[in-house]
């Protein structure tokens, strides 16, 4: 347990999966979940690096990221919900008045 590399690899995998998810999924709520996955992966990296460096700054950063994510989720889901109520669809593509 002296080497945090496996944790970093895992966080890289999760981050990339989240990234691919944002680009391929069409449901706004699922897209947003993939963003949350990315943030979680980043937190894992922060906590792993905190252990690596032996200081707690990384953990505090991860804590802040969680808190900020909470506020972001409240605002974001409110926006997604509003547009769903207007259009009765949560698909990113159905929201296409603004293309080109």
């Amino acid at each position, binding site marked *: 347990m002296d080497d945090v590399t496996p944790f970093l690899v895992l966080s890289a995998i999760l981050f990339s999966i989240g990234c691919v998810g944002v680009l391929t999924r069409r449901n706004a709520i699922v897209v947003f979940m993939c963003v949350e996955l990315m943030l979680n992966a980043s937190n894992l990296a922060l906590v792993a690096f905190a252990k690596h460096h032996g200081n707690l700054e990384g953990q505090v950063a991860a*804590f802040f990221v969680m*808190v900020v994510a*909470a506020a972001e989720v*409240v605002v974001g*889901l*409110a926006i997604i919900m509003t547009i769903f*109520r207007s259009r*009765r669809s949560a698909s990113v593509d159905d929201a296409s008045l603004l293309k080109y």
Partner: protein
Amino acid sequence: MELYTPVLALLALAAGFAIFSVAVSTLTGPKRYNRARLDSYECGIEPTPQPFGGGRIPVKYYTVAMTFIIFDVEIMFLVPWAVYFDQLSWFGLIAVVLFLFNITLAYAYEWRRGGLDWD
């Protein structure tokens, strides 16, 4: 790790019980579905306010969920402060009181605007 064994055992037990009960009731229970059965209430009072569309929950409760999240986050900030209170002394107290005041302002706003009214 030994410390966590009972916890893990309990987790496994709880998960097993949950899965078992759901599975058994699906397998053996009678299945009759109609719109009245899938309604929020099969009988009783008419739910107010009515949900929009086909959803089950009125959008109004979003503010309740939001309030929960805000206070949740607030408590998470209070824990380190409370644990380390004797060292943080006045500086920490002022910082936290300022923080709490701000959150309370948001709460006052929600309350005054009827975000908490139950109708």
